[in-house]
């Protein structure tokens, strides 16, 4: 084990996998000479050279095509989007090509590619840079969607992603890049997809989240514990595949649930989670599933408005109180 930041854990995952498999390469804007916009790929150009750490022009369609086409003939590309907001440019290559080629070919083509980069909201980046759109990808058959909340998961899930034979949407959180944690240095350490983690055991209510939302739920649970309310906090880790078994098992015990996310609430991943909990555990629920999410507005710039648009632990606490009322 070593203490490192989320961002360093991601770099370690890529470095180990590139050392292990010569077919793995990284491409994206400023990943090489600049050393990575968020320094995730710092030092990798020097280590692996320009053939395997590929600086691209600001051309997201090109980046997505580069990675998808190379994956279709057997390489294992990692494509970095400077932020997931910019991936909107590449939506046709992502949705109509990467996600569908295996199905359209009747399984004759594999597409082992990882699309990764920072998502998440905050720091007054305003409407076009501050948003979270995981439900777009989770909605599309063919993608697996990964959103780690802790440094060890960042490493273990990214390694699993690189070894997967499918297109992976790997959404990091810019606000978590500096988060420190214990990370296994073992190069064989991986974290499987589709296995949620129970971050805190509780008996009164189940809080389900992923990425930075998990941290909101943990903070809320701390506050509520002082009042004698014991929250069970579940970190999904991957949205697709989705570990509903862990969620439903918990709800059967607590009889209450709140789902929390940073993305817009309307038609969101939380909507799906809520629907599935109602479908699968209706008789176990003592109250409707509560939902916490971002305000359904383009992210405003002004500090006070931005604060009002982004969910906090107080929103989770309020939702818990409503559910338990």
């Amino acid at each position, binding site marked *: 084990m070593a203490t490192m930041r989320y961002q360093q854990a991601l770099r370690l995952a890529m470095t180990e996998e590139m050392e292990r498999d010569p077919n793995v390469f990284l491409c994206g804007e400023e990943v090489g000479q600049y050393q990575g916009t968020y320094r995730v790929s710092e030092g990798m150009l020097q280590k692996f050279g320009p*053939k395997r750490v590929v600086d691209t022009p600001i051309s997201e369609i*090109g980046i997505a*095509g*580069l990675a998808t*086409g190379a994956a279709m003939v057997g390489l294992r590309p990692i494509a970095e989007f400077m932020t997931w907001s910019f991936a909107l440019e590449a939506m*046709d*290559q992502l949705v109509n*090509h990467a996600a569908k080629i295996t199905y359209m070919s009747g399984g004759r*083509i594999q597409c082992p590619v990882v699309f990764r980069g920072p998502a998440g909201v905050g720091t007054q980046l305003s409407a076009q840079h501050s948003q979270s759109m995981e439900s777009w990808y989770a909605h599309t058959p063919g993608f697996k969607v990964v959103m780690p909340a802790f440094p060890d998961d960042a490493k273990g899930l990214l390694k699993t992603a690189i070894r997967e*034979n499918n297109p992976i949407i790997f959404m990091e959180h810019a606000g978590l890049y500096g988060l420190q944690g214990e990370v296994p240095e073992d190069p064989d350490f991986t974290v499987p997809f589709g296995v949620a983690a129970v971050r805190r055991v509780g008996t009164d209510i189940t809080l389900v989240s992923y990425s930075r939302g998990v941290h909101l739920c943990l903070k809320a649970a701390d506050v509520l514990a002082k009042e004698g309310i014991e929250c069970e906090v579940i970190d999904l880790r991957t949205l697709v595949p989705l570990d509903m078994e862990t969620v439903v098992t918990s709800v059967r015990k607590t009889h209450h649930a709140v789902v929390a996310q940073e993305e817009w609430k309307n038609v969101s991943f939380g909507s799906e989670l809520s629907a599935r909990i109602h479908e699968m555990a209706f008789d176990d629920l003592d109250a409707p599933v509560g939902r916490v999410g971002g305000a359904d507005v383009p992210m405003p710039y002004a500090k006070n408005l931005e604060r009002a648009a982004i969910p906090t632990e107080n929103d989770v606490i309020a939702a818990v109180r409503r559910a338990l009322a």
Partner: protein
Amino acid sequence: MAKTTVERPVEDDIQSKELLSSYRLMLLIRRLEESVYRKFHEAKIGGYLHRYDGMEALVAGIIPFLQIPGDYVLSTYRDHAHALACGTSPRAVMAELMGRATGCAGGKGGSMHLIDPENGFLGGDGIVGGPVPISLGVGYALKYRGNGNVCVVYFGDGAMNQGGVHEAMNMIGLYRLPVLFILENNKYAMGTSVERSTGQTDFVLKAKAHGIDGEHVDGMDLLKVRDVAGRAIKKMRETCEPYFLEMSCYRYVGHGIGDDNTKAWTTYRTEDEVAQWRERDPLLRTGDYLEARGILTPELIEKFEAEIAAEVEDAIEFAEASAEPPLDSLYENVYSK
């Protein structure tokens, strides 16, 4: 006396055999497309249907001369010809068009998504311009492996107005990737002529703007297509450089099944224009050329026609006798193992 439209000595028997083989391939493509049209109107084939009639030389002059396995071909939704040229059997093509389990994509792709990776064919593509960013990645992988292989990407004049095509061309020019661009300039993007869709109608100039050299070719002339592309590919294998060929060609029938060949000239082109292009038909011209040299005879044409008719009939019978994909395959292939 047969008229010859291409003045060029046939240098040896190998070339004669190759030309004859390309001629036969063009005939197979033409007859298969005709049969497919009939089957669509018998409601045996669904979805969209885009025929290649008139453009056969673009595949017959290039694809048979690739090194497969190793080289790769990417195409558009007008992709039946590319699959056949890569070596996909008429049976697998017809079965896919009829949505059968024995189709080249197991019935999950259809007309626009024929695919046959083992034969170097990475598929058609339903999105205008879609295959060009993919060719960037395939080209990158080929250069990465350094085996001297090339990726041939077919796309149309309409695709040249898609942003992603230019992003990919810029990057292919930047990284110097072994991608051969075959621009099928058939003059119309659906019903919109080249002149009505761009202020710069010389597509080679656009390639050059991305640092990619290229030239114009008469795409109705099998020998020219074969010569120019063959030369380009030979050089690409050594230099690992991209190259761009603007192929002047024409589709005789409508854009797709909704733009039927019986009505195609009513809104965006004239009957006279179609007739003039038909006079330059690659099958007729190649046939005349080969007949003038004694390589092709009326008897041989008759033999080819009979063989191909049997092949097409066999493909139809095979497809019609094949089972539909099992219902429990609905959720298969969303993900790879």
